Structures are given as C-alpha cells and as structure tokens.
C-alpha cells in the first residue's frame, strides 16, 4: 500500500488503444485474483496449512457485517486515518513550500526533518502514549506525523525542482515574487505534492493499524489484536482484507484526482 510509483506514468497512444489495453489488463487482474483464491483454497482445503479456508472467511465477513462490528471498526480506523492524514498534509504543504522558497526556513527546518525522518513513526507510539494518554490523541498524532513527514519532503522537492527558465519567463513578463509563487511555483510543483500526498496516505494506513494494535478499544487493528488472543483467524483475515481494500480505494481516488490536476503534464 505504501509503494507508490514516483515515476511518471506511461501513456498509450490513443483512447481506443488505451481502452483495449485496460480491458486486457483488467482481465489479467481478475484472472490473477481468481488464481490466488484458488491456490489459497486448495492449500487450506487439504488442511496442510493452518489457515482458514475462503468460505470460513466469507461467512465471518457476513457475520461481522451483519452485527455492525465491521462497520464500527472500519469507521473508527478510517476516522483516525483521515484526521491524522489531513492534518499532516495540510501542515506539510505550507512547510514544504516555505522550505523550498526561503533559504532561512529550509535551514531552520531541515535538521528536524532529516532527524525525524529517520525515526519510524511507530517508534514514537510509546512516547505518545505516555505523554498523551491512551485516547485518540496519540494515535492521531502518530498518523499525523507519518503523513506529514512523507508529504513535506515531496512538496519541498517539488518546489526546488521548478524549472528556472520557467521562473525567468515569468519574471521577464513582469511577475514579482508573489505572482511567481502563486502562478508558477504552485502549479509546477502540484505533481510532486500529489505524489507526496499519496505516499502520506500510505504511511497513514501503515501507522493506524500498528497504533491500534498497541492501544485502542476499537478499530480494525484492535479487532485483529483481540482475534489473535482467541486464535480467531477468520476475523484477522476479514480485517486484513478490509484494510487492504480501503487503502486501495483511497489510493485510487487520489490517483484519479492526480490525473485530473496534472492533465497538462507531458507523459513520455
């Protein structure tokens, strides 16, 4: 989930061409998934591996969906992810811009950034719990930190990699600093920022589950933690699928936004 491709996507020549490509690869995707389930089934069916079989997982899914627990857990995790992620990104974008634009800001912030980047956000959890209690705050804080660190670097990279010639072109057209910032630097670094946002979302998901594993009374991570105590593998599977599917859906949504906002980019 956190593996977001930073390279520009390759475009195919025409629309019709792309559509057939899409259908072909979609077919392969489905075939791959079906094959995976089949292998899972055949391996677990013979009882060789101690994992639950697909029907068990499916019936647990229906049960958890029916009694509302899955929705409650999902909502709890999602709320944490979204809150932490949005706060992180909202702070990361101005900080990243400031670092890219003002040498002073860069010099001030960079040491902290480099240092905290080396600490996995999860390592902050014990500290966060001790200082912030076991309520929502420490979990959201850790997610916030994870997504902030991921997107601030991307934003900063975006700002410093804006083509000098483009800035010069704006200057000879009479633009002053603020206009250059708003009308050149911001749009030119949007693709970078969006990549950062996607990476940030990935880290947010990676962090929420771990945070819930350690201290929570709700959420998908908490549910897995409980299930682990009772050796309840189907519930663990359902939770894992829920996390994967939710993460994937959100990533796809961001990708769609990204495509819309960067439609002007030349794709090789």
């Amino acid at each position, binding site marked *: 989930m956190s593996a977001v491709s930073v390279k520009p996507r390759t475009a195919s020549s025409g629309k019709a061409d792309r559509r057939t490509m899409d259908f072909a690869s979609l077919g392969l995707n489905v075939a791959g998934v079906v094959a995976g389930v089949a292998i899972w089934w055949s391996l677990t069916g013979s009882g060789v591996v101690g994992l639950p079989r697909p029907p068990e997982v499916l019936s647990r899914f229906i049960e958890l969906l029916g009694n509302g627990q899955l929705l409650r857990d999902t909502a709890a995790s999602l709320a944490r992810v979204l809150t932490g992620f949005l706060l992180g990104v909202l702070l990361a974008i101005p900080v990243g811009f400031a670092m890219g634009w003002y040498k002073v800001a860069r010099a001030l912030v960079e040491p902290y950034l480099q240092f905290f980047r080396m600490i996995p956000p999860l390592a902050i959890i014990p500290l966060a719990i001790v200082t912030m209690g076991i309520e929502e705050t420490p979990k959201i804080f850790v997610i916030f930190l994870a997504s902030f660190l991921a997107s601030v670097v991307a934003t900063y990279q975006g700002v410093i990699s804006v083509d000098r010639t483009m800035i*010069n*072109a704006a*200057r000879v*057209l009479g633009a002053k600093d603020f206009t250059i910032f708003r*009308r050149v630097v911001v749009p*030119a670094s949007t693709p970078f920022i969006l990549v950062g946002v996607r990476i940030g979302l990935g880290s947010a998901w990676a962090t929420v589950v771990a945070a819930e594993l350690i201290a929570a009374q709700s959420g998908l991570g908490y549910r897995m933690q409980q299930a682990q105590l009772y050796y309840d593998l189907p519930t663990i599977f359902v939770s894992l699928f829920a996390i994967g599917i939710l993460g994937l859906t959100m990533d796809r949504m961001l990708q769609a936004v990204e495509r819309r906002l960067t439609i*002007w*980019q*030349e794709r090789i």
Partner: protein
Amino acid sequence: MTPKIVFDNVTRRFDLKDGSFLALDRFSLDVADGEFVTVVGPSGCGKSTALNIAAGLLKASGGEVTVDGKPVEGPGPERGMIFQQYALFPWLSVRDNVEFGLRVKGEPPARRREIAERFIDLVGLGQFADALPKTLSGGMKQRCAIARAYAVDPVILLMDEPFGALDALTRVQLQDQLLETWSRERRTVMFITHDVDEAVYLANRVVVMAAGPGRLQEIIEVDLPYPRTEEIRLSPEFTAIRNRVWHAVYHQQPAQSHG
C-alpha cells in the same frame, strides 16, 4: 538618434571554487531603435550572458546596460525574452500563456482576451488557442512563446537561440514568420543563434563574438533589403556576407593572454 540598447563595457565574472571565470570582457554595443541584431559566436563566448544581463536576469560585474538611457536593474515587461526551451507554462492553454503577462499587468479580462487573440492570430495559432502546450509541436510552442512575449508590448525582444531546437524546414518558416511579425510590429530585436545563415538572413547587423574570454569580435553590416526572400537567400551578395561571418566565427585568433 540615440540608440535603444547600449552595452557599455559590460563585464561578467562567475565565481568558481578556485578563483573566478571571466565570461564576458568589456562588451560594448549600441543597438538602434527598431534594429534587428543577431549575435553569433562559438559556444561559451558569453552570448547568453550578455543577453541575460540585458534582460535583467543576471547582474553585470562591471559596466552597464542601458535601455532608452535608463540602466537595467532587473527584468521588466518592456524587455521581452524568448528562450530556446520555449518555457511555456504547461498547465496553461495557449491563450492563457499569452495572457499571462497581461494578467500580471492587471489588464481587465476583456482586454486581455482581445490582445491575446490578436497575437495568437499573428503567429498563426488561432485554431490552437485552447490547446495545452503538450499537444503542440516544437515550432508551434515557440510561436506561442513569441506571441506571449509580444502580448505585453515590449520595446525590445531578446531571443536566445529560439529556433535552435527546431528542424531546418520549421526553422526557415519561423524565420520568415518572425520577420513578417517584426515588420508589422516593429521592435528592437537582439537574436542569438549558432546558425550563420540564420544570423545573416534575419539581421541588419551581425555581431560576432569570440571566446576565452567572451568578447566582441566584429560587427558585420548586412546590406540587404527587407523583406528578405528566398531569392535573397540564394543571391551572391548573401553568400558573400555569409562567408564573411563564417570566417569571423570559425577562424578566430586566439585571445591575448587573459585571466
């Protein structure tokens, strides 16, 4: 008549790790109002440096450039610039690119649109006004950049190898179009090129520069009438001037000893 642009002993040093590098040494040149001057010279002879100083994008280490008698202190819309890499804003349509400088100036929307329309038509991009740069060919991109520079009504156009990245045929077409535009919307033009034919075809005068350190070598008058045509391009007079420029560029004496 007083000249439009005056380079008065313009010198530029670049600081390097070990000492400094003299990129432009006491470069002096007067460009008359409405004149079309081309600049040729070997790579690294300071052509872009001189142009960027005139644009206000680079500071001179010594001497100064004046435009209409006023020293250049920074970039300004009265000095338009066109870059080899086009430097269009890729997220803006052709129209919005051309309107960029007008928006900066604070022109009202209706007036912006009217002016942009005029220059987009002038460079023959009328059908592509709403296209994004990525859908344009290199020649079309450069035409868009020319329209963008013209739209803010500069008194001077500074062009740094604007056609350098284009194929030979497109280049010749754009040369004719540029001259056509120039004859209708007369501006003072300073145009850098590597192409001796291009330099002679476009110019009133060809400025030849030399390298090591970058300096003025020779100024060659092009005594050919406008409009320039294919006939002129094939004439013996053209060939004679072309050969003189060629000789001045490619058979330069090495510089006297210099830091």
